[in-house]
């Protein structure tokens, strides 16, 4: 176990998360395997409905139940299974050891509390310290994220979108978590403000050395911040590799299609290559490869069983039957 603890800081095995809805059982996460090394920043990429946020919420133990339910699997953080913890233990881990940055800074702050109070609240919950110390720490966090500590007594509506997201980052990092999950942290921001926040996240990563899962649909943001990338499709990881390998030579047909769909900033092409069709209905996932119906190299066999992850190149995994056959797609 000790060996694994060092190598596999976070390990998610065969995770199933389902939502019971009127239209049927939504299989949001369907047999997901993912691991993260200590100090690593992993980009989790996928389209709307791929199950990225559900995965994050499962790690945070924040799946609303009902309608949601973790139907199977395990999540090990530093060798301990988070799914076996009591409610009390979970509350300590959440915010203390694992923190999350949500997508929308406009709705993730309390509008009637000064921002320094919201940071202090986090520290009070997880650390023993007197009121003065807590306030000082809260103000230190503000200056760390580039906000003048004097502004700590102001309310969220007095801050712009980019500044609010800085406050959210300060709250998340206040207890020096070992794992940070950032769910689309810059999606709601303008491009020049996004550049500021990305720069801040890069600096903070050096400062804290926190292991991070960055959820994003923006391949550009992932290319800039992440050491490795996992591509998610229909509740599963379909490809994983370090960032350079994955961007230079994507192996899975879905990843390849994803890259071709992005308008290029260097060429002068007027028509984009697209992936035909839509992702499968999560209430009715096909028995075989979920991408088979949209895949241009699929064979009848692809629809019979689920492909498992195959190591196409050293450290570069993809879930595609064709990979094993031809040593590359």
């Amino acid at each position, binding site marked *: 176990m000790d060996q694994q603890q060092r190598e596999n800081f976070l390990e998610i095995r065969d995770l199933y998360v389902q939502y019971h809805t009127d239209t049927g059982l939504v299989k949001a996460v369907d047999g997901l395997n993912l691991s993260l090394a200590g100090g690593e920043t992993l980009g989790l990429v996928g*389209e*709307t409905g791929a199950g990225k946020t559900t995965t994050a919420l499962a790690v945070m133990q924040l799946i609303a139940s009902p309608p949601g339910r973790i139907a199977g699997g395990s999540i090990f953080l530093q060798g301990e299974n988070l799914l076996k913890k009591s409610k009390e233990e979970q509350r300590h881990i959440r915010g203390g050891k694992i923190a999350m940055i949500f997508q929308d800074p406009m709705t993730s702050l309390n509008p009637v509390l000064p921002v320094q109070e919201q940071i202090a609240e986090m520290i009070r919950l997880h650390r023993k310290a007197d009121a003065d110390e807590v306030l000082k720490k809260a103000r230190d966090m503000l200056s760390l994220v580039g906000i003048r500590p004097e502004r700590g007594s102001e309310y969220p509506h007095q801050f*712009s979108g*980019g*500044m609010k997201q800085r406050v959210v980052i300060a709250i998340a990092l206040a207890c020096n978590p070992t794992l940070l999950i950032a769910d689309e942290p810059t999606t709601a921001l*303008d*491009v*020049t*403000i*996004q*550049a*500021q926040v*990305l*720069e801040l996240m890069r600096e903070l990563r050096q400062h804290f050395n926190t292991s991070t899962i960055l959820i994003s*649909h*923006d*391949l*550009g*943001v*992932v*290319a*800039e911040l992440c050491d490795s990338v996992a591509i998610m499709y229909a509740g599963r990881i379909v490809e994983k590799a370090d*960032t*350079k390998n994955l*961007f*230079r030579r994507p192996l899975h047909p879905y990843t390849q*299609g*994803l*890259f*071709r*769909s*992005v*308008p*290029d*900033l*260097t060429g*002068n*092409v*007027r*028509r*984009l*290559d*697209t*992936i035909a069709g*839509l992702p499968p209905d999560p209430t009715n996932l096909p028995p075989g490869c979920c991408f088979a119906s949209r895949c241009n190299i699929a064979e009848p066999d692809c629809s019979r069983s689920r492909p498992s992850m195959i190591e196409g190149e050293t450290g570069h995994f993809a879930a595609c039957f064709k990979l094993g056959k031809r040593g590359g797609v």
Partner: protein
Amino acid sequence: MNGPADSGALVEIRGLKKYFTVPHGLLQAVDDVNLSVAGGETLGLVGESGCGKSTLGRVVIRLLDATEGSVFFDKEDIFLYNKKALRNFRKRAQMVFQDPYSSLNPRFSVEQLIAEPLHIHRVCVNERETAAKVKTLMDIVGLASRLTTSFPHELDGGRRQRIGIARALALNPEFIVLDEPVSALDVCIQAQILNLLHDLKDEFRYTYLFITHDLSVIRHISDRIAVMYLGKIIELADHLEIFIHPQHPYTQALLSAIPLPNVDIPRAGRIILEGDVPSPVNPPAGCRFYSRCPSRWDRCLGEAPVLRELSPDHFLACHFPGRVDKAKHIRPRTALESAEL
């Protein structure tokens, strides 16, 4: 400001201003904009949230009235149209909205949604003709005919946006304002819609005003690009020219801020702007970009730069073009600041 210039432009915007009265003063959403869109052209309008691009788009097709200035459509001032002429203009100029979730009536089926403009303008003589026309429109935008009786909540964002486009095309317009038509969509669906817009234009020779904050999308779809900042057009050029030779410090910063999905292009000197876009309520005199500009000088504070032609077909509103020192990232100190030291 009399008639339009004899430029052959389909849409000519002259000295256009749109101000809103707000509790603390005057919100100058669009301030003295001059632009023209040639027939068959796609003009891209790019800027950050709150810069006035959507307001401009709405004024151009008279969904909002202008505070000052004119918009000439086919050489006629749209603000001087009488009721009948305006009704005719509505057929010729259409709009596609950003959010396909809130811009469609949830109680209308796909067929009713697409037929609505046909009914309003009494284009078809009977229901059979309307149904046939709806069917044709659904084919054009790539909606399967089995979806005729579906309701918007049953459809994904890409299909809803196709309905929005079909509604805009229903009256055979010449000019279409597209306000962030792909911003709410996933990248694969976005690519499908961008291809659709491109093909439609090839086939029907539409003229587009394409509004977005997404720089890679705007470069992809546009013939010319106008960059907007705090109510003003600050740079206007061919879509490749502006990406290769951006001259305004804001354009340069904007372009350098795009995260590229490529690990092999080295990031040369990203310009990170300070602060946020200032409020458009009672903006200061002088250049509106002054407070964030990495290469500001005294002159910029006193005198607002006007849009002028820097090189053929490349227009710029800056006193000191191309002066950002990318290598150092350091903003030259203004004389005012130097005096304070």
